[in-house]
């Protein structure tokens, strides 16, 4: 009898669940489905807001042939690649170090995390001064005898400067994620290893690092996605055109700059890049 009763109430009340999903569904329609389809549609037209003209694949051809877009893609990839290559191992090592302490862990976590929570614009503006020829970055490298670099004045060093900003900002996040994964490793693994006479280094190589696979995958994915969307920091450092010499121009910067003219292809390409 109970089963029959349950079935009956389940059937008649089903529609209520859809109400629960109403906000999300409205959101998807308005903010996701419509814009995406419209973007795709528009990518085949040349539009100035009210008048449209069918252009076929011309937009795509145009974008792919402008040197500027190529530069934007290169910059975006470059900055992100360099950032991830440094921040992931560095984050891991620091997380490992923090994890092996008994006290001050929370203090250290908070300390390293502060750059991450600061608004990107403020951090970027701050770094205009940090990367100045006489700014603190050069002071620091000066301590090690490395000559001062005019970070923001030529193309390559500007990109490295942007990478440094990203590393600085995302280090805390990487550390936290690694710490979470490190704490999930059961101590029993280590106990067993040490009973068998394993050294610390070997323990890390065979126990710790393999378990970090999930963390690394996550951080690479998130880092990559965030990198593709990079705009705010480079905007603060280099403006809309990504000076110097467009070296800080990112894909999104390109979209923003050309945007309200004929950006649509940029959009489609962006989509493709994500898959």
């Amino acid at each position: 009898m109970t089963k029959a009763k349950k079935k009956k109430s389940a059937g008649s009340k089903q529609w209520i669940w859809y109400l629960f999903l109403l906000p999300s569904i409205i959101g998807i329609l308005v903010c996701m489905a419509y814009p995406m389809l419209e973007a795709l549609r528009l990518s085949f037209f040349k539009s100035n807001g009210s008048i449209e003209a069918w252009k076929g694949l011309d937009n795509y051809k145009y974008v792919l042939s402008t040197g500027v877009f190529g530069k934007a893609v290169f910059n975006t990839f470059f900055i992100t690649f360099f950032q991830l290559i440094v921040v992931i191992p560095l984050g891991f090592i620091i997380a490992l170090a923090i994890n092996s302490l008994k006290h001050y862990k929370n203090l250290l976590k908070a300390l390293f995390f502060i750059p991450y929570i600061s608004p990107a614009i403020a951090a970027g503006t701050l770094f205009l001064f940090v990367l100045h020829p006489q700014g603190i970055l050069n002071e620091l490298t000066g301590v090690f005898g490395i000559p001062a670099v005019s970070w923001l004045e030529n193309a390559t060093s500007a990109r490295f400067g942007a990478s440094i900003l990203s590393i600085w900002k995302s280090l805390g996040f990487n550390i936290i994620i690694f710490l979470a994964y490190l704490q999930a490793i059961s101590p029993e693994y280590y106990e067993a290893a040490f009973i068998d006479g394993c050294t610390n280094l070997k323990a890390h190589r065979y126990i710790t690092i393999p378990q970090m696979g999930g963390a690394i995958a996550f951080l690479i994915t998130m880092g990559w996605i965030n990198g593709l969307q990079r705009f705010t920091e480079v905007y603060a450092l280099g403006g809309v055109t990504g000076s110097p010499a467009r070296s800080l121009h990112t894909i999104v910067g390109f979209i923003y700059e050309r945007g309200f003219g004929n950006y649509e292809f940029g959009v489609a390409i962006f989509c493709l890049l994500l898959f």
Partner: protein
Amino acid sequence: MKKYVDKEENTCSINNKGARIFLTVILLGAGLLLILPFVWMTVVSFERYANINPPFPPSFKVKNFSWFNFKIVTENGAMLKAYKNSVTVAVLGVIVNTISVLMGGYAFSKGNFKGKKLIFLIIIATMMLPFETRMIPMYKLFLKLKLVNTFVPLILPNIIDAFGIMLTKQFFDKLPDCLSEAAAIDGAGPFRTFMEIFMPLTKPIVATIVILKFMDNWNSFLWPLVILTGEDKRTVPILISAFSYEGGTRAAGSTMTVAFLGIIPVLIVFLILQKYIIQSIALSGVKGE
């Protein structure tokens, strides 16, 4: 390396106290190094002549302590307005998001209805769509609706949050089904069950969502940049960048002070709630992908 199994966390700590102290000192040093830019920013903000004498080479001593820079920067009330705007957008955005996400997660966790799996998949798929691709059509849409330069376009997108729904769904999954079953037997419909039984239990996950979404909304830059065209509607990040550009050769004092004022509130909130914030982000990372 012996393990101390802590009651709170599983830890592997270094046995040797000396080594630990050494490591702690190094890490503290590294941490302080990392926040050095902020320290410098604070020093320059309070430096009376920072606008005239560039702050190079950098020193960490305030030669002429003064609130002068703060006065100039807040003179025309733009900063205060920006704060008000940011708070409005962030608070409303968080409310919209929390409601939508709690309801969605609950439906997917405790609900039973046709197409549940399909809709869930669709929602997860939306996570993959980057905002920038939708940005311009959304702008055009709001243009048509005459909602440009209002806060609505900033608040509305908070309504769809696949990640948030995943978090809440996992949370509700952990709450025992017998609660909803008992409610059903007593004749309560899904909505009542939701409001009276499950909602009061959602405090931890709501805290997480509120923190993450608040930070997201507060720090948001690109979309407000596109949508807000009026000077009085600017949010804090926009104001900071506008300041930096109006400055021309970037008067160091003013710029640093504006950055300071932009970072300090977030910093304070962070320092108070840091344990929860860090926990939330760690959680989102481990459960995320």
